[in-house]
């Protein structure tokens, strides 16, 4: 949601002159660029546990982060108060990075050809990717709690083996205002709503747990009957199989990634290594690969901030650069890394709108938004049918990557053994490990069914930011699967 400029200036109790003064202080010791990031976030939650919504609350976080750049070097400080003295002190702390330096030669300004002014105009409400139809701030908690009770009711009906249900509804509105030494001023209100449920089921002998979530940059209009139905069904999906699930014999084998949440493979195995701070520092396994073929020509991988209402959507990033759809791999060729202003300067290209931060407490760094692989031409059935012995995975949790080596890992909550082209024994609680560039090269089939998953994915690279991921059904020829 984008409100009038004055709305944001009033929240932060600043005027144009204050902004200019702070920039002048931040650049006062030789800085070549400075920016301000004001934030007023209100996060609220309600939790249903043991049959009642008996806990919840709200949390206010308010302040301004001030950054000074000297070339690629960063000075950063923040203030939790927007009183002039406190902000000036923070600006002075940030300016220390420039101590003893002479400006001009290391400028990242337009005239050096690296970073053109990107967005001089006012934010445009008509182009807003997350207009708020029903404002969370105007909802009464007892009304919102009804969604949680409805979800519980549907779950109880769906599976009588449920022994515990815990459901959480959380929502956040963040008012942000940004200003930089180019004179660019941006402002908007970023909503986020998340409905998540965990269930424990017992068959009298064994316990099985399951989790499902949906998260959107939307107002409370996201809380529809259909959403509750979807979550209830997903939380108890394939439970008979989960009770029967075991572990396969471990080893290297073909892995078929189910469409949607398997996009965590892209996020971990490739996406992080495409983040250009790692390129700038020489740490990524993809250093020196730009413009080169890195996988089959039916593979296109995108990082997209433009999907309306998506958890990874942005109008502009946390450096004020417009969000975009960045094609990282096009028909198998590495075409772009993900840039903030610093890495763009270092690699002499333009920022891609990936400069993101957890809050005003953090300096922005290159981060993914919604990362997905586009559809190919195979059907999921044909892909599974082509595997003599392997694993099909359809539910994931956390993943991780080692940037330098490219080794990645993700945890499979559930899936199936594939034997002679058919799904057979259910499997669960196994880890899969591989190497990013090698896994990309080992993708042998791409399905025609790409889905961007709408779960509450959060990426934890130094700071937590909301993201999403997606993929069509994909066959990777050889990954290491943990097992007995």
């Amino acid at each position, binding site marked *: 949601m984008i409100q009038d400029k004055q709305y944001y200036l009033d929240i932060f109790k600043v005027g144009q002159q204050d902004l200019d003064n702070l920039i002048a202080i931040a650049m006062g010791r030789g800085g070549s660029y400075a920016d301000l990031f004001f934030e007023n976030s209100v996060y609220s939650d309600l939790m249903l546990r043991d049959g009642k919504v008996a806990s919840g609350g709200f949390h206010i*976080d308010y302040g301004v982060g001030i950054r000074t750049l000297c070339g690629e070097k960063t000075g950063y400080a*923040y203030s939790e108060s927007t009183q002039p003295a406190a902000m000036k002190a923070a600006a002075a702390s940030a300016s220390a990075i420039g101590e003893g330096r002479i400006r001009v030669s290391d400028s990242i300004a337009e005239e050096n050809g690296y970073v053109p002014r990107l967005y001089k105009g006012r934010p445009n409400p008509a182009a807003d990717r997350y207009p708020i139809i029903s404002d969370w701030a105007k909802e009464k908690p007892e009304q919102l709690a009804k969604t949680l009770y409805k979800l519980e009711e549907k779950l109880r009906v769906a599976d009588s083996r449920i022994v515990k249900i815990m459901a959480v509804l959380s929502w956040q509105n963040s008012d942000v205002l940004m200003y930089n030494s180019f004179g660019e001023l941006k402002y908007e209100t970023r909503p986020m709503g998340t409905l998540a449920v965990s269930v424990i089921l017992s068959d009298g002998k064994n316990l099985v747990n399951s989790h499902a979530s949906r998260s959107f940059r939307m107002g409370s209009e996201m809380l529809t009957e259909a959403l509750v139905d979807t979550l209830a069904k997903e939380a108890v999906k394939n439970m008979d199989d989960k009770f029967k699930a075991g572990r396969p014999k471990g080893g290297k084998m073909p892995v078929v990634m189910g469409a949607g949440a398997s996009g965590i493979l892209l996020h971990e195995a490739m996406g992080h290594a495409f983040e250009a701070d790692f390129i700038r520092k020489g740490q990524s396994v993809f250093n020196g690969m730009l413009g080169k073929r890195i996988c089959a020509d039916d593979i296109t991988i995108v990082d997209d901030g433009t999907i309306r209402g998506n958890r990874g959507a942005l109008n502009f990033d946390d450096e004020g650069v417009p969000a975009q759809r960045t094609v990282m791999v096009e028909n198998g060729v590495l075409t772009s890394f993900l840039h903030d202003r610093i890495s763009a300067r270092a690699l002499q290209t333009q920022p891609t709108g990936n400069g993101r931060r957890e809050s005003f407490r953090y300096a922005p760094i290159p981060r993914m938004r919604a990362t997905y692989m586009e559809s190919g031409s195979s059907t999921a059935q044909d892909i599974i049918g082509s595997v003599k012995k392997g694993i099909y995975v359809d539910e994931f949790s956390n993943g991780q990557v080692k940037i330098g080596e490219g080794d990645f890992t993700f945890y499979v909550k559930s899936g199936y053994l594939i034997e002679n082209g058919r799904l057979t024994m259910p499997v669960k*609680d196994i880890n899969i490990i591989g190497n990013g560039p090698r896994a990309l090269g080992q993708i042998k089939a791409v399905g025609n069914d790409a889905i961007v998953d709408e779960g509450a994915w959060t990426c934890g690279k130094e700071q937590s930011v909301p993201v999403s991921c997606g993929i069509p059904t994909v066959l990777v020829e050889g990954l290491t699967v943990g097992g007995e």
Partner: protein
Amino acid sequence: MTEAFLNEIEIAAARAFLDKALEAGAQKCRVTLSKSVMDLIGVLDGQVDKITHSMDRSVTLALYADGKFGTFSTNKLEEGVQEFVEKALETVRMMAPDACRDLPAPNRTEKGYGDLKVCDTAAYEAMTMELRRKKALEGSVFGSHPDIISEEAEYSDTLTDVCILDSNGTFCRQSEATFDFANEITVRDADAKVSAYWWDSARTADGLDTAAVGQEALRGALEKRNARACKGGKMAMVADRECAARLLAPVLSAMNGFSIQQNNSFLADKLGKKIFPDFLDVTDLPREAGAYGSRLFDSEGVATRNLPLIEKGVLKNWFVNTYIANKMNITPTVDDASRPVVASTVDKDCKQLLQACLDGLAGGDKGTVVVTGFNGGNCNSATGDFSFGVEGFYHGPEGSFPVREMVMTGNMLELWNNLVAVGNDARPCKPRVVPSLVFKDVDFSS
């Protein structure tokens, strides 16, 4: 004293939140006031790349009104207190009643501003920007080896100050200062690259040897070159002192009262039972002076005390806060582990334990994997089934070489019952005091 400590005005502000909550109709209230100041110098390839100064303050309210409960926080201490409290109470009154919500009994809470020797004020106040830069740059090893591609290091010092006040009259406070340095080195590995990370922490800047950290990170990176997977199967495992705590974490998590109450713990019906080896003792020792993890009180203000967790293989206690205790009608303890210590069973460090493995203590005929780091993975809290990516070194019939792209899989209870020995080399800078651990018959896949 430095601005990093809570001052009288801030503590008075916290009292104002408490008083206004009670005036507005709350029957009980707890206020947690915290403040943290951190200065950080980042070094990239031997040069200062980042300077950060941060100061955080916040107030968190736990409100109890008309049998209902809610938690609220803000970092606006000086303005809008009345409005904040009134809105919070309005929210609380919309919740369903929950009779189990309560403050801890006054006789259980810590009193006063205690000193566990975890905050060397003089050492903290002596730090200047120049000293920080010097300390950070001293830890750089960039250029010291021809195969170094990249170095990313961070020096930081942090002072945290926390106090808890409640409507039962509790007031307790603790301050802590740490001086930290971490270095990640990336080196050439044939036509690829490999990286390693090392860190250390001390109570004074003088006690922090940043140069040694840099050297250790470099050594780690160079040793990891030419890594490959060994053949999978059941092998002995030494989890070294840097990563062994990862194997204790799921056990501690399963001892949390919330998990127990929610039927989401593989230790739910195991209290008082012998479920670990006879020789395994784990004790929470939260009051050792100067130690990492030491704390005087938990998040409710409950005074910490020594707490046996596992004694001669018997599970002795869970972590139970006031709410869970009331809900399950059991005796409360503390909300979580502070400084769990796994008692050593041998007078050996990791290297000696490894040699013992190779000599046949646990290695079997397939060899031993010395795990130096975990790469992702998870543990199912309800069943204890786990699967972790591992890296480290293989020693056995295939030779001795670094390993990567391997996975270990099993069940937490089975794993701990395959524990063979506990070393004596726990790192003092870690709040979970877990030395190198030796296990037999661990499933590795490659």
